[in-house]
Each structure stands twice: as C-alpha cells, then as structure tokens.
C-alpha cells in the first residue's frame, strides 16, 4: 500500500530556500502570496495490507531517517 509522507520545517525555523522561492514568485509578478515554506514529499510503497502496521512502519522510517525532528515535523497518510 502507498504511504504519503510530508516533511516540513517546524514553525520558527528559518527557511532561506522558502524565502528565495517567495522572492522569485514576487519577481514573476504572482501577487497575493504572503509566504512560502519549502518541505519534502515522499511516496513510500509498504508491503502487506495492514493499515495500522503500515503507518507504524512509515512513522519509524520518519523518526529514524526521513525527518530530522530537531527542525522538522512530518505527516503520514496511508492511501488505502
């Protein structure tokens, strides 16, 4: 089954890349954007069909490698 993992910087952690993207959007003339934060997205193929087990596996993957929880939060969605 597929898991979708979104990793984002915690609130208050400086995001120079997000700021650069925000500036680039402004220079493109795209109005109405108040801020940009850059994150990461992972599509993970999990073996088996047990949703709870899949979620536990992916959360372990996040805690141990996919996210650095000093500065990042993560969100896991199991897509049936």
């Amino acid at each position: 089954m597929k898991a979708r993992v979104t990793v984002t910087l915690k609130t208050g952690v400086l995001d120079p890349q997000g700021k650069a993207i925000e500036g680039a959007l402004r220079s493109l003339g795209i109005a109405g954007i108040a801020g940009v934060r850059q994150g990461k997205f992972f599509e993970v193929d999990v073996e088996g069909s047990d949703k709870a087990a899949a979620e536990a596996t992916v959360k372990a993957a996040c805690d141990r490698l996919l996210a650095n929880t000093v500065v990042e939060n993560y969100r896991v969605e199991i897509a049936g």
Partner: protein
Amino acid sequence: MKAAVIVFPGSNRDGDVARALRQAGAQVATVWHTDTALPAGTDLAVLPGGFSYGDYLRCGAIAGRAHAMDAVRAHAARGGLVLGICNGFQILCESGLLPGVLMRNVNRRFICHRQPLRVERADTAFTRAYAAHQVIDVCVAHGEGNYFADAETLARIEGDGLVAFRYCDAAGGLTETANRNGSLNAIAGIYSASRTVLGLMPHPENFVEDVVGGTDGRGLFASLATAA
C-alpha cells in the same frame, strides 16, 4: 596517537585530514563506511569533509546511519576521541553524537573563504596547543553550515561551555558580518558533554602548510597527536 579516518561515498577531504594528522605525528588508518569496527587501539575517529551520499535527503543524514557509525558511536561511548570536520560535523549532528543541526546558510550561498575563528577554550584534547580566545586563521567551504538548536539545547551548550569555536573578525570581535552563514551565537564548532567529540564547519586541515596560505590549523592536529 592512532587515528582512523572514516570514508563515505562522496567524502573528499579524507586525504587532507590524514596528511595533517600524519604531519603531527599520528598513525592513520582508513575505514570504509561499510566496516563494522575501527582498527584495534584507535584513539581518534575522524569524519572528513565532503559530500557524503551527494548530500541526498539532508547533509550527513545517510552517512550518519552507516554501519561504520555504529562503531564510531561505540568508540565515543568508551570515551574515545571523535573529530568531524564540515560534512563530518553534519554527520555527527545527524547521528545524534552532537546536538543541533546544520541548516542552509542564511544567505543561501555556498561560502568559501578565509575565516578567523575564536578558540573558546584551550583545555581540551583538541585545542591544548592554542590559547583560550586565540584568533586563528582557517578556511570555510560549505553551503549548509548554519548551526541551529532549540533554545533549551543552546542554553545547555553555552552554560556547559561546549562551544569550541566561534566565527569572529580578525580582532576576535563577534560581529554579524563575521558570521556569514547565520549560525546561532556564531557557533562554528561544538563539543559533546564530555568534550571528547568535536564537530566544526571550518577546515583546519587546509592550513597546515605555509605554501597553501597558512599554518593555524596545525594546532588542532598537534593537540590531538599528544592527546593519546
């Protein structure tokens, strides 16, 4: 002094740091990242600079979980010395051996220049050849050297005297312009609680010969060579 330099795919300063260590009188062995043990009698494990695993995921993230790092962790737990330079510092933070994280430079640029550093204390295995608050001339070369830790961790690092080096101007002043990557408290390097693990972004191994511009990096390797 027996040193072991750990080499990851993408390490590129392993030869320079090995040379600086040999110049100071250390015996140097090389350990591949898939090795599960350090050579018997290793006093110092070194994580060199470079771009391990192409900086994929996060700088140092994948190397920090390599087999050889289990051996480095065990070595550190026994009180063995560990030195991480540049990517090595990133690996130490990612592996949990040092607190905090190295973020993208605040100016979003790869910075590569000479950099004065203030040696915070001269009573550790890494710095005894220097004087406390001595300003040394070294080099930096990194895109992700912006040291960050949460407020509680930062207060502990400062309170326990675990800052090893700070970015400063030539006179030792801690100015905003001297701290080009935006590190909290101008931190360029930190120690573990026992001061036996050191991570720093600048490259002392670059400046061990007059012919390449300076020798202020020698003090670190000279300190280590007499540490064991």
